[in-house]
């Protein structure tokens, strides 16, 4: 039984989905993949919608998604394919080693990242790594990526510590601020005087080490703090 399974998987062609806007590009990459893989079936898509439909229909082992895929970019498509809950793994293909894009892709659930500069060999290496169950990040991007992740982690710890300084009331005021209420309405909502509301706001700004209500709001949105404040949101 085990031997039969092994033989079956060895014979089964490797199914790939290639998503890129340009016909000529897809044809060129297809030629390269068909040359480098023993047996490969390459499906194509020219847009995000097509890519998701193709993935859903054919369940390719790997989907190679260009980061500039119209209409909304490849990272969105990656999220959508992951949301389908199929076994398809996703490689995002980008120009250059853009840190932010790499992080963005990984957060969207991408299983790997390949670059135009890496040539066909990087795509082949990426596909083979995914076949083995590994993630794939081009080695020269790995060190900067790890550093960026550590820096990000430290920033979040720092922000979390500052939020922890807020009293319960101050958290309530903060959340209403982020929801877009002005001091008058915050006071009315919490049934406190406007002067008290303003005092709370000043304390929030001070403890969070920001200089304005706008900065405080930006901080909350950037670091996704709202769920941690656990106060019912009133609009």
């Amino acid at each position, binding site marked *: 039984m085990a031997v039969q399974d092994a033989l079956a998987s060895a014979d089964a062609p490797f199914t790939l989905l290639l998503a890129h806007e*340009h*016909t*000529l*590009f897809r*044809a*060129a*990459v*297809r*030629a*390269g993949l068909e*040359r480098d893989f023993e047996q490969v079936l390459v499906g194509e898509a020219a847009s995000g919608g097509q890519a998701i439909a193709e993935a859903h229909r054919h369940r390719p082992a790997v989907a190679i998604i260009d980061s500039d895929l119209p209409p909304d970019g490849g990272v969105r498509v990656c999220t959508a394919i992951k949301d389908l809950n199929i076994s398809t793994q996703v490689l995002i*293909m980008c*120009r250059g080693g853009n840190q932010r894009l790499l992080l963005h892709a990984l957060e969207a659930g991408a299983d790997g990242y390949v670059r*135009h*500069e*890496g*040539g*066909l060999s*990087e*795509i082949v290496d990426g596909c083979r790594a995914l076949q083995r169950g590994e993630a794939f990040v081009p080695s020269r991007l790995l060190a900067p990526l790890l550093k960026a992740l550590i820096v990000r982690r430290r920033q979040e710890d720092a922000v979390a510590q500052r939020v922890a300084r807020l009293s319960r009331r101050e958290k309530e005021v903060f959340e209403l601020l982020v929801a877009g209420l002005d001091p008058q309405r915050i006071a009315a909502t919490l049934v406190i005087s406007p002067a008290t509301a303003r005092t709370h706001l000043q304390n929030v700004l001070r403890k969070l080490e920001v200089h304005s209500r706008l900065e405080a709001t930006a901080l909350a949105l950037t670091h996704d703090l709202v769920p941690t404040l656990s106060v019912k949101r009133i609009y």
Partner: protein
Amino acid sequence: MDGGAYHSKRNGPDNPLTPHVLVLDRSRVFAEGAVILLAAAGMTARAADPETGVDSSQADPFTVIVADELCAPRSTGGLLDRLLALHPTTPLVLVVETPGQAADEAVAKTGATAWVSRHSEPDALIGTIRGLHGRRELLRPTTPAPAGSHISADRSVQLTNREQNILTLLSKGLSNEAIGRSLEISASTVRTHVRNVLVKLNVRSRTEAVAMSLHSDGFKGSGGTVERAVS
């Protein structure tokens, strides 16, 4: 970039029937894949990095160059200018994002020979390359030398890209002034180029020159507007 790994020797660059193509593109993935596509179509091809590959291209007898329109904009006097300086008579195909008039203008402005759209099928690129390669061959003089005279063996008629452009516009029936406006050069410069074309093609009039270019197998239509060519 090691272009050698993808250099197909099936027909060999010495075979005059085989286009020998240089591919330059910002995407190394595309360039390498294109080389394989062209090899499968019976050509030999090499990919080169737009930044460094221009200089190393000198030694290789490419018959057609395929270049990414956006490799280096003309205004920075970059890649395309250097390519054309090193290979003035080698046909250059621009790979463009937007087909149609914008592409025509890009070809005219940069001094390239033809364009192919990224949205087209590979056949368009392959056909265009074959057509350009074939046309180069056809412009060599094939009539035997008259008795008592001698044509040296290495005299071959090669039009520069600029001269090709002008021949193309001539075959559309444009006057010298209209050509000048289209290419943003003076009418007298156009006249000089036309004169050189007539000398090189060994014909006595513009009409003859146009007839000669239209008789070549490679093209339906003119170099500047070819998206598809009969192969």
